[in-house]
């Protein structure tokens, strides 16, 4: 008898016993006699579903089989099932193009969420699988364009290392030991913990910490129903200063929407709009339309030659953090050349031309040249060109100017240029809209009342502009304040957040996340196991944006509101779920009234929410049905040009009072407009109803003075008079745009540089390096150095340096509450961290700057993000390489995806030895190891581009 026969006999014996008697009842988990309707019930059913293997008659549909078998496909034994659609790959491409690939495909319009731009997309769904994603031409903002990230959504949806099941930590926090639990177990445990927090009388000790989120209503509903305001975000790591600067001028909007498509001159201060702007493709495509269709000139100031700078008509590399100085000098030149719009300044700003002359007098182009290095002649020339193009001219800025300790003033100064030339609100000029999100025609179903809790984490009193107009918060201080004992969290829920990678001071973040005394209980909601999930107690598998619902929209560059739909293209994989699905269940388990806010199913809720979307006369569809059909709806409002000139209606004026001396119009004590030319118009939504170049409000709010009269006059009554807990946290904020240089930049030693940070067009910081199509394009981030700088340090391309980063002296002076005595001191500077990286030499960077991109250096977040092809520990060891187990799906014997076979060339085999490292291999380095926690003292914006570093050659 052969071994095989013996073995088979044993399996027959085993099978006989396994299929007999009671044991047969506890095997057979796969089949379900009936698909459950309630998704939460699925898991319960799955676990209890049993089948008596021997007891049921055959259910085979042999007729069906014979029909398939009878088709002219020769299976020949071991081949594919007939009619199966091929995915991209070498085998599929042999017969490319597959004429049947898009046969019987369903096109599902939806919205992307691989970055914050949320472009319209269309998913091609065949047999329950998404086989292609493209842009949705119906989306009024993105107009059918879709970037590389959006295309890589397929990697995101079908990534082999996606989280599919809830898990509970087994070992110590951060040890990486887990076991699967059911959704019931997970929700029971979370509910028990949250209920205890709620009943402790300190609901604010439950904090929800979000990364990129586009389900604002769902999160707010849950947190309000629970009773906590501790909703933490990354806004201060992103756009706090730009928003604060805009708000000082406008009050009603924190987001400038530069009308670049109709512009003739675009002055870009540090924005990498072609790659990394929040407006991304909608904005970039309009810039190019403006240039090619309208002849617009694009001038870029950026310490680094970004792809935007490289694609501009002119590029200047100012000394880091001096954008505001250049802008003020341009303002000076415009006034000096008498090219200002005197009428706009007089009619629509709250300063006189004489006041501006006085204020701008010291800011000469020569002064700015000394500070920035930008030639005075160019500053003057560009200022003149800009003014001559008015009103179809606009500035644009973003993190390049705002992510500095002086970023608030930088952006104030840049915005001033638009006021001087009268391009504010004009076609082709510097615009904004009232609609930062959804068209107000869609009404969110009734929400719970807002809680009254306060937490130092959510509203740190030291940052006067962080929370007065908008809840911008100061995200980067969260872990520091927890470490310093200024707050504690009984429960912490993270959502689409990768703070160990994206927050400054990686080691501090890790330390706090590990500490169970400071964070008692941590639930992480994510699609992938990232660096945050690594420190969680329970991980919940989140559905991807192609498997869930939202109504969504961004501030539209059409300057009119719209509403788009994110809809499940396919069922969530595994047991992954969206918060819309499990928050109601969690609320029911917590009880105490929370449950009453969840009476509708998700579909019912969406139908109610979208019910006001009007009927499309062509299709007859309205509401959710219309959005499901088209993906987006945009009304026919006029674009929001010159809103200050919009006349108030008779209805508006009914019961209104006009102040005869100022012309201000109020109703019930609240400002609604101003008299201009004898007519009541809307004006700006500021206390003066003018574009507030001089802001009395910021000065008073910095001093915690009562601003209720200013708030009422503006009509923006949601503006907060600072909370009583802010008293004694005073700060001097200048009423006018000024500029100052941080102390450490003034005293920069010869061997020191300023580290700056940037983002690539294929990545979005912490969330895309796991996608192989994108990781192939960018996976590493050596430090950029100017060749002049390299020569001074004796460096050549590919050499390694040791970078030591320092904490800001300016912040030591201005923000003593940060109390960074914990950092060791070296040569009079507080040392944050040291890291070794290779350098790449580039002319396209300022000689006093060192640039490292973000997005790199993952140590979790899938093997792709870590550039690992095998699970072998020592890749430098040849035998380990040979025997190292292949990671998911990369076994060359079976793996047939050309992308991977061809492209996983970037695995780093150096084993950490710089002498063995090959350029463009590995997964890079986390720049946030070096960058200190560094909030602008006014708004709290993280200063990502100000860090002073010392470098020395390794070896």
């Amino acid at each position, binding site marked *: 008898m052969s071994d095989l026969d013996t073995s088979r006999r*044993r399996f027959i014996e085993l099978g006989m016993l396994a299929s007999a008697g009671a044991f047969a009842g506890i095997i057979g988990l796969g089949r379900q006699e009936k698909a459950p309707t309630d998704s939460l019930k699925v898991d319960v059913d799955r676990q209890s579903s049993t089948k008596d293997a021997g007891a049921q008659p055959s259910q085979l549909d042999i007729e069906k*089989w014979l029909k398939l078998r009878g088709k002219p496909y020769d299976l020949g034994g071991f081949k594919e099932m007939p009619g199966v659609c091929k995915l991209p790959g070498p085998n599929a491409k042999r017969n490319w193009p597959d004429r049947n690939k898009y046969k019987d495909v369903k096109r599902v319009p939806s919205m992307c969420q691989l970055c914050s731009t949320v472009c319209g997309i269309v998913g091609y769904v065949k047999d329950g699988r998404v086989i292609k994603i493209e842009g949705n031409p119906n989306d009024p903002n993105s107009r059918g364009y879709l970037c590389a990230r959006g295309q890589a959504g397929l990697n995101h949806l079908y990534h082999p290392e996606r989280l599919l099941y809830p898990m509970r930590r087994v070992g110590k926090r951060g040890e990486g030991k887990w076991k699967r639990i059911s959704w019931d177990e997970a929700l029971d445990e979370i509910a028990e913990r949250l209920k205890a927090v709620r009943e402790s009388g300190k609901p604010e000790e439950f904090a929800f910490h979000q990364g990129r989120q586009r389900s604002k209503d769902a999160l707010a509903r849950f947190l309000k129903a629970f009773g906590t305001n501790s909703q933490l975000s990354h806004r201060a790591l992103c756009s706090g200063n730009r928003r604060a600067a805009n708000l000082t001028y406008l009050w009603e909007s924190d987001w400038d929407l530069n009308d670049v498509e109709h512009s003739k001159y675009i002055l870009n201060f540090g924005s990498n709009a072609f790659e990394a702007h929040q407006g991304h493709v909608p904005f970039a495509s309009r810039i190019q339309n403006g240039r090619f269709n309208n002849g617009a000139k694009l001038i870029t100031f950026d310490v680094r030659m970004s792809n935007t700078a490289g694609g501009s008509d002119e590029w200047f590399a100012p000394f880091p953090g001096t954008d505001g100085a250049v802008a003020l000098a341009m303002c000076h030149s415009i006034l000096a050349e008498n090219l200002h719009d005197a009428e706009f300044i007089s009619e629509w700003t709250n300063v006189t031309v004489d006041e501006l002359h006085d204020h701008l007098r010291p800011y000469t182009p020569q002064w700015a040249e000394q500070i920035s290095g930008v030639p005075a002649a160019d500053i003057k020339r560009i200022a003149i060109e800009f003014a001559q193009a008015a009103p179809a001219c606009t500035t644009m800025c973003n993190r390049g100017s705002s992510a500095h300790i002086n970023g608030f003033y930088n952006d104030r100064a840049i915005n001033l240029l638009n006021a001087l030339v009268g391009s504010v609100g004009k076609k082709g000029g510097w615009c904004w809209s009232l609609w930062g999100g959804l068209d107000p025609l869609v009404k969110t179903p009734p929400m719970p009342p807002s809680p009254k809790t306060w937490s130092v984490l959510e509203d740190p009193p030291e940052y006067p502009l962080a929370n007065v107009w908008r809840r911008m918060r100061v995200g980067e201080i969260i872990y520091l304040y927890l470490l310093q004992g200024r707050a504690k969290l009984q429960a912490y829920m993270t959502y689409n957040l990768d703070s160990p990678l994206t927050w400054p001071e990686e080691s501090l973040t890790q330390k706090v996340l590990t500490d169970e005394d400071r964070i008692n209980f941590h639930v992480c909601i994510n699609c992938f196991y990232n660096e945050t999930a690594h420190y969680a107690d329970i991980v919940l598998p989140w559905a991807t944006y192609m498997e869930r619902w939202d109504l969504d929209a961004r501030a539209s560059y059409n300057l009119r509101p719209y509403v788009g739909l994110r809809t499940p293209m396919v069922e969530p994989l595994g047991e992954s779920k969206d918060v819309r699905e499990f928050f109601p269940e969690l609320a029911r388990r917590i009880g105490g009234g929370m449950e009453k806010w969840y009476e509708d199913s998700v579909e019912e809720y969406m139908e109610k929410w979208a019910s006001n979307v009007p009927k499309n006369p062509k299709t007859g569809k309205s509401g959710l049905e219309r959005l499901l059909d088209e993906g987006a709806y945009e009304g026919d409002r006029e674009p929001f040009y010159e809103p200050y000139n919009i006349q108030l209606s008779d209805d508006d004026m009914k019961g209104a009072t006009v102040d005869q001396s100022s012309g201000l119009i109020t109703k019930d004590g609240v400002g609604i407009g101003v008299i201009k030319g004898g007519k009541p118009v809307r004006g700006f939504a500021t206390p003066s109803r003018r574009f507030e170049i001089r802001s009395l409000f910021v000065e008073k709010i910095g001093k915690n003075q009562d601003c209720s009269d200013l708030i009422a006059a503006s009509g923006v009554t949601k503006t907060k008079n600072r909370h009583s807990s802010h008293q004694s946290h005073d700060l001097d904020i200048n009423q006018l745009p000024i500029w100052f240089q941080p102390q450490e930049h003034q005293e920069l030693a010869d061997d020191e540089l300023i580290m700056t940070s940037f983002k690539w067009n294929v990545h979005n910081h912490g969330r895309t390096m796991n996608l192989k199509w994108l990781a192939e394009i960018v996976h590493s981030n050596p430090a950029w150095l100017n060749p002049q700088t390299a020569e001074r340090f004796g460096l050549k391309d590919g050499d390694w340096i040791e970078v030591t980063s320092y904490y800001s002296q300016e912040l030591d002076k201005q923000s003593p509450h940060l109390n960074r005595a914990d950092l060791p001191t070296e040569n009079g500077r507080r040392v944050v961290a040291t890291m070794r990286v290779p350098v790449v030499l580039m002319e396209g960077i300022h000689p006093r700057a060192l640039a490292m991109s973000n997005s790199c250096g993952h140590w979790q977040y899938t093997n792709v993000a870590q550039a690992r092809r095998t699970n072998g520990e020592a890749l430098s060891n040849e035998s380990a390489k040979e025997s190292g187990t*292949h990671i998911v799906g990369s076994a060359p014997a079976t*793996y047939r995806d050309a992308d991977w076979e061809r492209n996983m060339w970037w695995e780093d085999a150096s084993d950490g030895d710089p002498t063995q490292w090959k350029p463009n291999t590995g997964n890079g380095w986390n720049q946030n190891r070096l960058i200190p926690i560094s909030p602008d003292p006014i708004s709290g914006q993280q200063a990502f581009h100000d860090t002073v570093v010392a470098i020395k050659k390794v070896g």
Partner: protein
Amino acid sequence: MNVAAEHSTAIAGTYRLLARLWLREVDTPFLDSLMQAPLSNAFTAAGGSLPEDASPSTLEELSVDYCRLFLGPARHFPPFQSVWERGQFQGEAVQSMNQYLSIANYETELMPDHLGVQLDVMAEILEALTPDAQNPNAIVDLARCYFGTHLPWTDPLFDSAIEQTTTDFYRSVIEMTRDFLKSEHAVWRASAVNLDTVP
């Protein structure tokens, strides 16, 4: 009767048992039953290695090993055909499996190309090979095609996972599945059906 159809009910039982082992980590009732003779003897005779007890700590250890091997969250080996053939979820294997599930009237909320589901469906097909089956040749043909399409992909998964197991139990489950499928492969390869005989 074709050789592949011999002992089909018993072989289906082995498929069913292995399906259960792959679909979910063991729990107390299952492990208690598995550890009772004569099933325990048959299990070990077939290459299985049982833990010393079914205590909570043992179950936890097994759950952790199962999770680390097949569920993640990191450096794991998802037992899905698409993952090992296409490097992603929801490859062609899913579309093909859906057709076989339809033929087998097999409804599941699980991802259909999970090895556990695939083993369970094979059991389902074999169980139809009863002595009074209406069309045994067609069933054998179906079983053979199904096996050939959806069960030969597993060796890289087994090889990788075996290296990373920390418990004898799961090592033996993987090895036993590998050996069983090897034996089945030989049987089905030898069982070519003349299409002319299929009505």
